[in-house]
């Protein structure tokens, strides 16, 4: 293909301009609803930029979380709370100075950064040659991103899963506290206001989405189990799975979701994923290796790596998907 670099540059400039325009519109807008929709659009443009940068797995996550789940959660809040009165005044002199100052510092900081795609950049000199050169032999997995994420940097990923778990628990605790203070039952699920139940009763949506959601779930499983070979893995699969279930919740009312997956089951899933990850690490210890050193888990090194990476990706997927669904369920409880 001729001039692919030029096309990429034009696409980058156009997308970044749209990104900036969306950000300015978000600052100037007064209605929380508009801001939510605009932030969804912002995420969608980011998602396209990630595809241009060849980071398809990041784009998956951005599309599912940024465009889908985050927008839905914020819309749930807007639906249940009185619309706050946002005033859009021009910022004061101090905040303009502060913002510009930080912006100038950030731009100056980029002056020391290596050019995008520069093979001589320090980050590409240190460990990257080893990952790129050795990982197919050491782990037997063609997708270097997966082997770096799950094997070489297993500690980091364990930390990320724990962060997601902790954040989910924190949100659940905050919302549960509010429910109890209200005195109403903890498992009370909100019935939607009249306008919303009309959406639920929409036969066209119901007919089409009930056929699309299984495909979304199937795609999530594909992303989960094909992560060794193509872009994807536990995080991406988890959010896609969660987004599919949340769509079902929107379609049939969040009250139907606890019938499909109990709230307790979802919270157990959050904990089980982290536990599975940790258990793989500990069993590596028991088998005589280091913590999270999967090579000792099976007869050969690559088989052990395969097994370990498969299991920890499964743990990541479980935690992420359960966290997303439990957030949706708890956001739709009756807050009083």
């Amino acid at each position, binding site marked *: 293909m001729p001039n692919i670099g030029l096309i990429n540059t034009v696409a980058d400039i156009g997308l970044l301009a749209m990104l900036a325009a969306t950000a300015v519109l978000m600052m100037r807008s007064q209605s929380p609803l508009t801001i939510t929709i605009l932030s969804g659009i912002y995420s969608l443009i980011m998602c396209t930029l990630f595809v241009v940068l060849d980071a398809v797995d990041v784009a998956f996550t951005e599309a599912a979380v940024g465009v889908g789940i985050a927008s839905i959660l914020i819309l749930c809040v807007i639906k249940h709370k009185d619309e706050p009165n946002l005033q859009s005044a021009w910022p004061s002199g101090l905040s303009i100075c502060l913002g510009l100052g930080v912006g100038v510092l950030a731009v100056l900081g980029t002056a020391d950064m290596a050019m995008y795609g520069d093979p001589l950049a320090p980050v590409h000199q240190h460990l990257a040659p080893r990952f790129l050169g050795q990982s197919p032999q050491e782990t037997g997995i063609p997708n270097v991103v997966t082997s770096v994420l799950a094997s070489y940097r297993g500690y980091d990923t364990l930390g990320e899963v724990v962060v997601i778990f902790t954040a989910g628990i924190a949100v659940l605790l905050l919302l549960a506290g509010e429910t109890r203070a209200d005195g109403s039952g903890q498992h009370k699920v909100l019935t939607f206001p009249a306008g919303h139940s009309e959406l639920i009763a929409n036969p066209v949506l119901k007919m089409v*989405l009930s056929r699309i959601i299984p495909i979304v779930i199937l795609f999530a499983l594909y992303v989960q189990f094909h992560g060794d070979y193509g872009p994807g893995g536990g995080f991406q699969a988890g959010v896609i799975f969660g987004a599919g279930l949340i769509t079902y919740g929107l379609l049939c009312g969040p009250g139907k979701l606890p019938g499909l997956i109990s709230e307790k089951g979802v919270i157990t899933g959050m904990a089980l994923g982290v536990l599975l990850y940790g258990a793989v690490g500990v069993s590596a210890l028991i088998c005589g290796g280091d913590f999270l050193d999967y090579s000792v888990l099976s007869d050969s090194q690559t088989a052990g790596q395969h097994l370990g990476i498969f299991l920890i990706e499964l743990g990541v997927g479980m935690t992420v998907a359960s966290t997303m669904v439990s957030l949706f369920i708890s956001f739709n409880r009756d807050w009083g």
Partner: protein
Amino acid sequence: MMTLIGGGLLCIGACVVLSGAVGLLRLPDFFCRLHGAGVIDTLGAGLVILAMLFLSGSIIIAFKVVMIGVLLFILSPVTSHALARAALQSGLTVRADRTENRQTTGRD
């Protein structure tokens, strides 16, 4: 030959998307604007997908493009429908002509 057909379809698709965008900005009320958006979603995206099909060059990519096309073909009209229905139910009126506002109900 494939490149030529693909490029031609891409150009027509771009024109359709552009006209849809102009319609989205210029048409008088919500439902007319929705028509503009619908044109982009269905005909515009459809033509671009068809162009991609001609430009893809390999069976695997062509299959993926077809899958995207099928999803778009199903989902785009549904989104337009859901938007229009939501607008009707939240009490937006359909303008029959420039002078008269006609109140319609959600169900026919």
